[in-house]
């Protein structure tokens, strides 16, 4: 991992982009003054610096660093999901299990590279355990809703996110640095978010689902997806894919990223909140940053596993 040329090249690239973005932000603030949009933009850029630094350090430090980082991300994301779902006193013990026993176990299986259990632990065992534990408490009011919502939170915040560090356990012939796959995934998905936003702001006219999210426009979606896929294609040297494979995979990832953002917007709109939380300044909560990644990660994991191992 250390002294690995592609990694260093990538870091320089990311650093370059961040520096350019910061300069643009300062320039805009200097020329146009501190409007709320520009303040938000600069807050976001600052948060990007932090997030890149954290992710890079975690991945550079090895498998354990990556697993701990994503376990923490799951913890914060789960906390946000659970806060939004209307739970009752009868769910308290089941939720304690989720946070402090089941979530760490999922990451333990990732660390042990135990694919068989990692892939089914939450969809099967946790899925059966949660309703049982809640039923044992005796409160049957909205029983199915409560169970379903907690299970959904576990799937999104823990199961999907855990597929990112799980990339480290794949054995790809002729390819050793799986951490690059993590970087590839995260870069393509996050760039797709940013580019969809930028294209939307510049060219967006017709919203795709106006009732749900007036900010997601057709121009934003098409422009953002295509440009992010080109970025992904440009990163083919990080991965075991050929450049056209990188392009196709990136298209899938960006579409899934869009789907993830859409679904989370639907949940937020139903709950009447604008953001999942306020953990990351300028962006909202952890879920607001991870929503695209949650949908893209499991599919990416399985695509790579199916085609490349």
């Amino acid at each position, binding site marked *: 991992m250390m002294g690995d040329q592609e990694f260093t090249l990538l870091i320089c690239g990311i650093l370059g982009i961040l520096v350019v973005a910061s300069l643009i932000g300062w320039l805009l603030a200097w020329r146009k003054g501190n409007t709320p949009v520009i303040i938000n933009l600069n807050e976001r850029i600052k948060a990007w610096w932090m997030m890149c630094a954290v992710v890079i350090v975690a991945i550079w430090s090895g498998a354990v660093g990556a697993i701990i980082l994503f376990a923490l991300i799951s913890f914060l994301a789960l906390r946000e999901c*659970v806060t939004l779902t209307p739970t009752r*006193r009868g769910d*308290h013990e089941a939720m304690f299990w989720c946070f402090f026993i089941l979530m760490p176990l999922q990451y333990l299986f990732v660390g042990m590279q135990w694919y068989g259990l990692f892939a089914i632990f939450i969809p099967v065992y946790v899925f059966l355990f949660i309703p049982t534990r809640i039923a044992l408490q005796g409160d049957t009011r909205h029983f199915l809703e409560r169970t379903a919502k907690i299970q959904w939170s576990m799937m999104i915040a823990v199961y999907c996110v855990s597929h990112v560090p799980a990339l480290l356990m794949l054995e790809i012939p002729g390819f050793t640095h799986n951490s690059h796959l993590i970087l590839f995934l995260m870069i393509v998905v996050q760039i797709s978010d940013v580019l969809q936003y930028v294209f939307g702001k510049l060219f967006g006219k017709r919203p795709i689902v106006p009732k749900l999210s007036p900010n997601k426009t057709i121009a934003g979606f098409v422009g953002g997806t295509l440009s992010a896929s080109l970025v992904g294609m440009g990163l083919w040297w990080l991965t075991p894919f050929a450049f056209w494979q990188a392009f196709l995979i990136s298209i899938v990832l960006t579409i899934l990223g869009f789907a993830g953002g859409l679904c989370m917007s639907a949940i937020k709109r139903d709950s009447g909140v604008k953001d999942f939380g306020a953990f990351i300044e300028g962006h909202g909560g952890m879920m607001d940053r991870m929503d695209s990644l949650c949908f893209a990660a499991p599919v990416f994991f399985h695509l790579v596993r199916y085609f490349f191992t």
Partner: protein
Amino acid sequence: MDGLAPDAIYSASFEGERMKHSNPDSSPVIETASTAAEQNISVIPPAEHQPLDARIVAGILVFACRLLTGVRARWLQPFDWTKPQIFYANHTSHLDGLVIWASMPQSMRNRVHPVAAADYWLSGRIRRYLAQRVFKAVLVQRGRVKNTQVVNVADQVDQVGADSNQSQSSGGHERRGVLGLREMSAILERGESLIIFPEGTRGNGEELGTFRSGLWHLARQFPAVSCVPVYLENLNRVLPKGSWLVVPIICSATIGRPLAVVQDDEHKTGFLTRARQALEEMMS
């Protein structure tokens, strides 16, 4: 210096009320309890600076609190920190005091004292250490007290009846007064702030219980001090009554606008209703 006579013995009941009022004509009021077991002294050092170990433990607790609850304080209006305040909040969980205390700006944490139950916090070394050295809490006793002698209660107080200048034995029936009023007054006299929970006990998080009268007595005794409602949300989901398990949930502490000062002719129930309404308004 802080108005506490070192050998003063206090006993009070959280369930009942007893009025203690410093009599301007003579020495401070002393209540004597009939049994030594009801003795409770909480000595609070002046807030000069916090010792290092207390600061480290406080830092750890605040960090754990943030990890569990992600709590951020929302201030509905900018604050005048030069005056003492009485923060009163809804009570749903053992974590309430910690959360409000952790939402205060760090420089103020030294000078904001949560009011807590002595029977719980004095039992056990860790609790004593936390309550006295880290939080600098004001500890007051709970439980019904009988056979209490009251000396020199000033007469502008309670409808229960002012006493004359002689000690009276209550002989089996309970005198009503406010517990810990003396310690709380001492804090306010020093120019520092209090955090109290007027409901007296943890509720279920849905409605507010009836307010005890401590807030009223303090507000009347110190008209220069503002009473500020604090609404704590979701803490009953983190550590509900009846469970020792914590579940991380994002909570919020909303610190509202100070109440209007107690009027001279305002009655206790009027004031407490007004205080309660101010808190209820923040709940919606």
